[in-house]
């Protein structure tokens, strides 16, 4: 019992690290729940993961700490991309309650469940004394972990990896779709440009803008007869109604130019 107390006492640099990093971690974890934007939540989640990794490293588990960073930053990055793809680039949570009275019930349930967990885990005891990290790491942290993973826990390890591979394959099958027609190659496009329709655009579409006066993408180019070149404007901008008239940017009298 006293051995356990000795081993778990934190002092010196580790205590300093703990008292600086722990409040920051808790703050980040809380604000992860409270911020409105999904992307901010993802960033704060990454911050929590990295500070946990620093704790692991400080507690003589460098491999676990580093793997935590490699795996979880990658995972959070994926989450980030999912947010962008599924929720939208600039979305935030709506705080209106759709079902009345849900909030107090949720808060009570969360507090009750949390209290239950804390009180249970706080009273739990192991039926054997722990050896401490110094004994576990006697051949080095990485070889000790490898020894356990590839001997005692090899079955669990393989089952988990099989599960993950199945999940990845399943995701690929679900997301897979066959192209109806083959994707045109650069060569196909070049051939098509010369062999179909008019040769007017064979050298590329005209660029937008009125020469020397305005060359932004929202101003259509002018043809030699003064009419508008429709092909110089993106269809998206036109649909959005963002296109400006190019008439004000025309040069009126060329002969008045100073010589």
């Amino acid at each position, binding site marked *: 019992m006293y051995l356990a107390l000795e081993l778990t006492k934190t002092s010196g640099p580790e205590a300093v690290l703990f008292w600086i990093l722990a409040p920051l971690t808790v703050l980040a974890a809380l604000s992860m729940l409270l911020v409105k934007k999904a992307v901010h939540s993802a960033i704060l989640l990454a911050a929590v993961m990295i500070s946990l990794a620093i704790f692991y490293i400080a507690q003589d588990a460098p491999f676990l700490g580093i793997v935590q*960073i490699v795996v979880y930053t990658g995972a959070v990055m994926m989450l980030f991309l999912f947010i*962008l793809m599924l929720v939208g680039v600039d979305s935030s949570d709506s705080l209106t309650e759709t079902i009345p009275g849900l909030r107090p019930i949720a808060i009570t349930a969360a507090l009750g469940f949390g209290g239950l967990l804390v009180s249970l885990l706080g009273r739990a005891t192991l039926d054997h004394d722990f050896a401490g990290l110094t004994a576990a790491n006697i051949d080095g942290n*990485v070889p000790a972990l490898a020894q356990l993973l590839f001997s005692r826990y090899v079955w669990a390890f393989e089952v988990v990896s099989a599960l993950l591979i199945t999940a990845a394959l399943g995701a690929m099958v679900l997301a897979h779709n066959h192209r109806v027609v083959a994707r045109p190659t650069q060569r196909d496009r070049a051939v098509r440009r010369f*062999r179909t329709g008019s040769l007017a655009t064979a050298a590329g579409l005209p660029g937008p803008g009125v020469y020397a006066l305005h060359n932004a993408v929202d101003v259509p180019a002018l043809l030699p007869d003064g009419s508008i070149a429709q092909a110089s404007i993106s269809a998206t901008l036109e649909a959005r109604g963002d296109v400006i008239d190019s008439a004000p940017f025309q040069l009126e009298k060329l002969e008045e130019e100073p010589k």
Partner: protein
Amino acid sequence: MSTAELIGQDPGWLIAVKGVLVFAVCVLLTLMAVWGERRIVARMQMRLGPNRVGPFGLIQALADGVKLALKEDLVPAAADKIVFIIAPIISATACFMSFAVIPMSGEVSLFGHRTAMQLTDLPVGVLYVLAIASVGVYGIVLAGWSSGSTYPLLGGLRSSAQVISYEVAMGLSLVAVFIYAGSMSTSEIVAAQHKWWFGVVLFPSFVIYAISMVGETNRAPFDLAEAEGELVGGFHTEYSSLKFALFFLAEYVNIVAVSALATTLFLGGYHALPGLTFTEQWLGGWFTLVWFFAKVIFFFFIFVWLRGTLPRMRYDQFMKFGWKVLIPASLFWIMIVATMRVLSLQGASRLTVISFASAIVLIVLLIGAGFDSAKKKAALAPLPDEAAPFPVPMIPSLSTTSEIEGTVQRG
């Protein structure tokens, strides 16, 4: 005494001094790298490059830095302000951190202490560098997202896809090194190379690492995250002044860091060239520092050479190359390395090892030949010949070109 034990005896003030030295070396190398890159690229393009500020234009990069710092610092109205400011800080912080585990010299004496020019030695040092690199990407992705504008967002997304894909290939190429060195600590990997460099023993791993390190650092020909022709400036389009300078700094420090890691893993770190090992004792061991930086600068030159020579790859080609070529090739190579290692550790006869190796070579050649013939068949498929509505120059189909080539060869 191992390097880890040697460094472990450092007093606190010496650790602080080394930390400052590592930082100074990174910044100085960046300044020199910017100047060197511009001069070398200029030479490749038959120009002179910066030659006005200081002797040979040496302090041009410093002048550019001052200019950048004095520019107006813009924050776009549509930007997410906090993330917009944090992003370059993440980039610039992460790039310096990976240098902490790089062994830059052998055992030397610094202010009367026996130590080595390495800030710290982790048993998982190389993985630490990978972890820091994956934190560094956050800078780029968040910069792209927080700018509130289309091109930066596209650049940020491209870069995240790029780094995630190429980190897999990079991590796999390192596995062979771990198997041969029997450790993931940078100092022990260098020590394991005192006789043979891993760049020679594990040449395929070296090639895969070299390719993926260019992909990791967003450099030409893989600089799709900031492709000027497609995305203006990519993720840093909206950045100006010191924030842009931080991204600029991060890019160059990252190049130096991956070069230093390549030196450590494959070119024997601070060890001298084979046959010149007596130079490692010169200047009380400090001469190893010269060897280390010579190798890093060699890699940097390769980076510049690539930029001056190769056009940018198309995005889908780049992704295809990473997933369909680099990763399967690394997996295949790891299997071979592991088998060879087990064979040699169990004391198999030389005949067994040689016959195993030649069987592998034979299989690879057969597969390659199969691919080649399939490619030729696909290439010879006739083009659909519709009647052209306009008189256009004849587009030579491949069958006619190969006929022409055939006549040329015969003639």
